């Protein structure tokens, strides 16, 4: 019943506004978090057993008649489902306390669950047009969530985000049209097989360029990043966490890698483009992050940089590179989710996002300061945290594949990352307590609990990295490393 990943959040989303009328807080909190908890359990516990004998192809039937709903669960999609459910749950737990003063909680969770359903649908889709449809589902919900605070900044950021997202969608639809024109199909398997036989160089290049522009905008790779540093900081903290931790990865990185590696096949030219895009994003965004005074804007630039890291690793195309990239995607989702949540706790306590105005907050908010430090060090790649291992795998893969210069670039980006995160930690939490914040208190229970959960995951995965890689990352990387064979051979309905 893998369709549950899409239908369950949608059904609960439909009920939530009604639940919100019956009970303003308790019922919406309970329903949304229980749904996400179920999705975590289902993906993490039942998922592995489901794909034990290879990818699961599900053709849904209704009253005995086959419907046109064909979903596929393989190592890569299961991996993404687990990431979405985990970070989604943490951000949703955080919302219990954080969204209190925004009002209309039932509505908030409804939009939130539609966004989760969109991401899950995208991950399980087995054809190009369904990818586009679910990408839009997640995007439409996210526009409203970015603007949820209704302030001028939020509305402006949401509008800018909407405009650039629409451009991305236009490119994607264009790309899909070219592929459909060439192959007469949309199914991943059919397209992969048809393209193999067609040998349509120039037209495929046009389609690839359109997809690269579309997914590049969604993933906010430099030079397509202009919308992200506005949209992500303006959103409420749990939404920032999900946008940076999940949405750019699902609708950008996941879709891009699925299409380019499993449907089109990674060519050397494409590999070079991905390496360059990744490397430029990783370094340039790290430099841009260094100059930020707004804590959430710094985190947003850091997201661009780390997504660059992931794309750089996947661009290598070797099994080790792909595994490193995916592992980093996982680690970054956890750590960036964590950092956006802690920044939300700080903003809620102090009312500011300006790093220069903070200082010494560790004395007043020790748990938030500690979890923030774990997240920062994890993304910066300090051992023994999870981010260290993924970065190590990426650098080893780059050297092994004969790209020492890109490996050096990756190390440089890592050093820059450590630099700006230490800067952030020092300005916000260390040093003498700024007198203005004498009355500040630690964040409420659920906000702290969700950050502690993510911090523990960062530490735990760092210690148990080997088993995490073999259990979750390797099956996903194998699917991608198999190239078009992973799809063309076994995905026929």
């Amino acid at each position, binding site marked *: 019943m893998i369709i549950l990943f899409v239908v369950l959040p949608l059904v609960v*989303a439909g009920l939530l506004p009604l639940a919100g009328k019956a009970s303003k807080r308790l019922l919406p909190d309970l329903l949304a978090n229980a749904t996400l908890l179920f999705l975590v359990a289902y993906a993490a516990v039942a998922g592995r057993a489901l794909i034990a004998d290879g990818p699961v192809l599900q053709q849904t039937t209704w009253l005995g008649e086959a419907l046109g709903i064909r979903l596929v669960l393989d190592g890569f999609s299961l991996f993404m489902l687990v990431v979405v459910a985990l970070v989604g749950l943490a951000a949703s737990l955080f919302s219990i306390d954080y969204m209190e003063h925004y009002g209309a909680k039932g*509505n908030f969770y409804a939009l939130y669950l539609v966004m989760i359903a969109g991401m899950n649908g995208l991950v399980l889709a087995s054809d190009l047009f369904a990818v586009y449809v679910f990408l839009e589902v997640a995007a*439409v919900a996210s526009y*409203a969530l970015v603007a949820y605070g*209704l302030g001028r900044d939020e509305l402006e950021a949401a509008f800018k985000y909407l405009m650039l997202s629409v451009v991305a969608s236009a490119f994607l639809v264009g790309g899909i049209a070219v592929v459909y024109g060439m192959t*007469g199909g949309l199914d991943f398997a059919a397209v992969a097989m048809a393209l193999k036989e*067609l040998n349509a160089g120039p037209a495929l290049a046009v389609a690839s360029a359109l997809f690269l522009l579309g997914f590049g905008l969604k993933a906010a790779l430099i030079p397509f990043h202009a919308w992200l540093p506005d949209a992500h900081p303006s959103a409420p903290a749990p939404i920032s966490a999900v946008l940076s931790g999940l949405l750019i990865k699902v609708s950008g990185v996941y879709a891009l890698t699925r299409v380019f590696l499993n449907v089109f096949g990674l060519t050397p030219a494409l590999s070079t483009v991905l390496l360059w895009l990744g490397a430029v994003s990783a370094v340039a965004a790290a430099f841009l992050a260094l100059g930020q005074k707004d804590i959430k804007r710094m985190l947003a630039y850091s997201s661009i940089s780390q997504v660059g890291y992931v794309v750089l690793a996947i661009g290598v195309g070797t099994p080790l590179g792909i595994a490193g990239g995916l592992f980093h995607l996982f680690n970054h989702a956890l750590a960036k989710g964590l950092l956006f949540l802690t920044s939300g706790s700080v903003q809620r306590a102090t009312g500011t996002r300006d790093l220069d105005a903070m200082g010494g907050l560790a004395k007043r908010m020790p748990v938030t300061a500690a979890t923030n430090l774990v997240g920062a060090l994890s993304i910066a790649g300090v051992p023994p945290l999870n981010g260290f291992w993924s970065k190590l795998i990426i650098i080893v893969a780059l050297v092994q594949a004969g790209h020492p210069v890109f490996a050096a670039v990756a190390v440089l980006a890592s050093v820059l990352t450590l630099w700006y995160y230490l800067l952030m930690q020092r300005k916000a939490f260390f040093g003498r307590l700024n007198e203005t914040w004498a009355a500040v208190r630690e964040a409420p229970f659920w906000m702290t609990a969700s950050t502690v959960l993510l911090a523990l995951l960062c530490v735990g995965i760092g210690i148990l990295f080997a088993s995490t890689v073999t259990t979750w990352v390797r099956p996903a990387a194998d699917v991608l490393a198999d190239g078009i064979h992973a799809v063309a051979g076994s995905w026929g309905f």
Partner: protein
Amino acid sequence: MILQTALLAVLVALSVLAIALKDLLRSAIALALASLVLGIVFFRMGAPYAGVFEISVVAGLITVLFILTIALTKSGDEVRESKLANIVFPVVFVAFLAIDALVMKRLMGKVPALARGGEAGTFGEVLWKGRTLDLVGQIAVILAGVFAVLALFRQRDKHE
């Protein structure tokens, strides 16, 4: 062929008008006319369903929504717009036309097997049996739209 080219040229001209016109109402009408022409192009290219939807939904329903919304707005302060767009847009537009004329025709000639439908059957069969997942997605988009309106228009006066 000449008629087709003329229709496409009119389509592009109306689309440019929709962007360039300062009056929102005229802009909305230019957009409606553009989608009407696009609907005709769809019909002529053998895609009647796409044509019907383009004309009924985009040229019809959405235009009505636009005009209703414009009617609800009040003329307020003049919005100062960047003058840069007046220079950048024509330059990009001309460059785009040049690239289109020089490259696309040759490139499209190389696209193999173009204009062959992959899925056979009537419209209903394709929609209900072939693309049911898209309908689930559509429902989700509509849900998101409704929740977005509910969320963005809550306690509006507090922020005005």
